[in-house]
């Protein structure tokens, strides 16, 4: 069954719609049917700061909404992926589940424990597969050097992802980039957190983290960063101007979401179908390269 409830999260649909656009296009290409559930809300990840219980209830509510439609969830945001997967892990405990369900009944919902949550990259990796993706490539991206960035919550906690990845030595995004015909580089800070979740409390700390990675990438002669979470995207892309002003740098590194790179390889229209014109750092050079 290649049918999923699409969990957009809070940020992608309003701030990074190009990620949603490209993801819908790529899923359509491979026959992955995406169902929109209008009642989906915030996954609850940030509410955990103030109330662990509130965060868990919000995640459980979203899981129950998908479960009621007998659908597994496909996510775009790494953080939503982590929050929902962790909730599934916690809700395996019957006492916790019963207590959560007591509250969910107030809104006529119940979570039984029959939902899987996977990120779009994981679905592409597991359901479509590297070989099938390779066979579908229509546009030559072999001249592309890109820096992969996984996103912490795509990998951790490992226990919530059935051992899908080794958090300190992940491989799926590298392989997916290779499948699209581009060249992922290795670099020292590739596993460094984007700081997105500390940014609302201390933008200074977040900028320090972003600067570390951008500085590391400065001499790597890459065409773009490729990542798979809109929060990481906003940090590395939209904060470059802030970094340049704060640290006196001149970064101008395009940042792409993986479905955009894959869409390019599959022959999609870069503007209409992938939204490459919507980036703050213009990927014009990339567009010239793909012709």
């Amino acid at each position, binding site marked *: 069954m290649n049918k999923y409830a699409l969990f957009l999260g*809070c*940020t992608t*649909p*309003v*701030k990074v*719609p190009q990620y*949603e*656009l490209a993801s*819908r296009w790529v899923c359509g290409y491979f026959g992955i049917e995406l169902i*929109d559930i*209008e*009642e*989906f*809300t*915030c996954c609850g*990840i*940030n*509410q*955990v*700061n*103030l*109330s*662990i*219980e*509130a965060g868990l*209830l*919000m995640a459980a*509510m979203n899981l129950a909404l998908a479960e009621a439609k007998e659908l597994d969830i496909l996510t775009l945001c790494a*953080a939503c992926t982590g929050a929902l997967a962790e909730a599934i892990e916690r809700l395996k405990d019957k006492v916790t589940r019963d207590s959560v369900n007591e*509250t*969910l009944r*107030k*809104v006529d*919902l119940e979570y039984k424990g029959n939902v899987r949550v996977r990120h779009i990259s994981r679905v592409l990796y597991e359901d479509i597969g590297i070989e099938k993706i390779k066979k579908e490539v229509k546009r030559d991206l072999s001249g592309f050097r890109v820096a992969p960035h996984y996103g*912490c*919550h795509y990998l*951790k*906690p*490992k226990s919530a992802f059935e051992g899908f990845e080794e*958090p*300190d030595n992940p491989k799926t995004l590298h392989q997916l980039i290779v499948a699209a015909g581009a060249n992922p580089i290795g670099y020292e800070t590739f596993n*460094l*957190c984007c*700081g*997105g*979740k*500390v940014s*609302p*409390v*201390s933008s*200074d*700390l*977040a900028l*320090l*983290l972003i600067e*570390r990675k951008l500085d590391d990438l400065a001499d790597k002669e890459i065409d773009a960063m490729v990542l798979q979470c809109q929060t990481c995207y906003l940090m590395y892309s939209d904060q470059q101007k802030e970094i340049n002003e704060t640290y006196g740098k001149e970064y101008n590194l395009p940042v792409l979401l993986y479905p955009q790179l894959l869409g390019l390889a599959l022959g999609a229209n870069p503007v209409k179908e992938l*939204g490459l014109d919507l980036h703050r750092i213009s990927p014009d050079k990339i567009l010239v390269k793909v012709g």
Partner: protein
Amino acid sequence: MDEAKKTFEFKKPVSTSKLDPNFKSEVLSHSGAQGLNACFSCGTCSAGCPIHEVFPDYSPKKLAKMVRLGMKKEVLSSPYIWYCATCRNCVERCPQNVRFFSILNVLKNMAAKEGYAPAAWVEQAKQVIKTGIVFASEDSWVKKREELSLPSLKEHEEKIRKIIEQTGIDKIKPRVDSE
């Protein structure tokens, strides 16, 4: 950060008369924090912490120790407990399965109840109760989605409000010194 540094000085000697001997058990009574007993201060958490790397005063190892010592007021009022980037390296790499990140969430929840929550998180919780997501709707987003032929978004806050108000999250007040 500089402001936080002033209000949270690690280098002062610890006065035993000011310690709260019950703090550790109070923290341990929350299911997420039970790993604390297994912590032997090896420092793997701090060594792998990206925030510690750029701002050494933030140290998971130190915070765990302060909890064990009973430094309740210092810990709960500290701006530092909100500096975690949630990357989970501390959870993945701890040889004792302490799950510092979970302990920190317990500490943040306790601090929030005592009036130390950063305004950013209090505002976000309020927003979620209003619109179901962490943002207020803006016309430019609605228009952009129409242009891209993406489905329109509907606000569904009613269910969320009903289920999370009982946790008291809507009653939490922001800390006074936060911006």
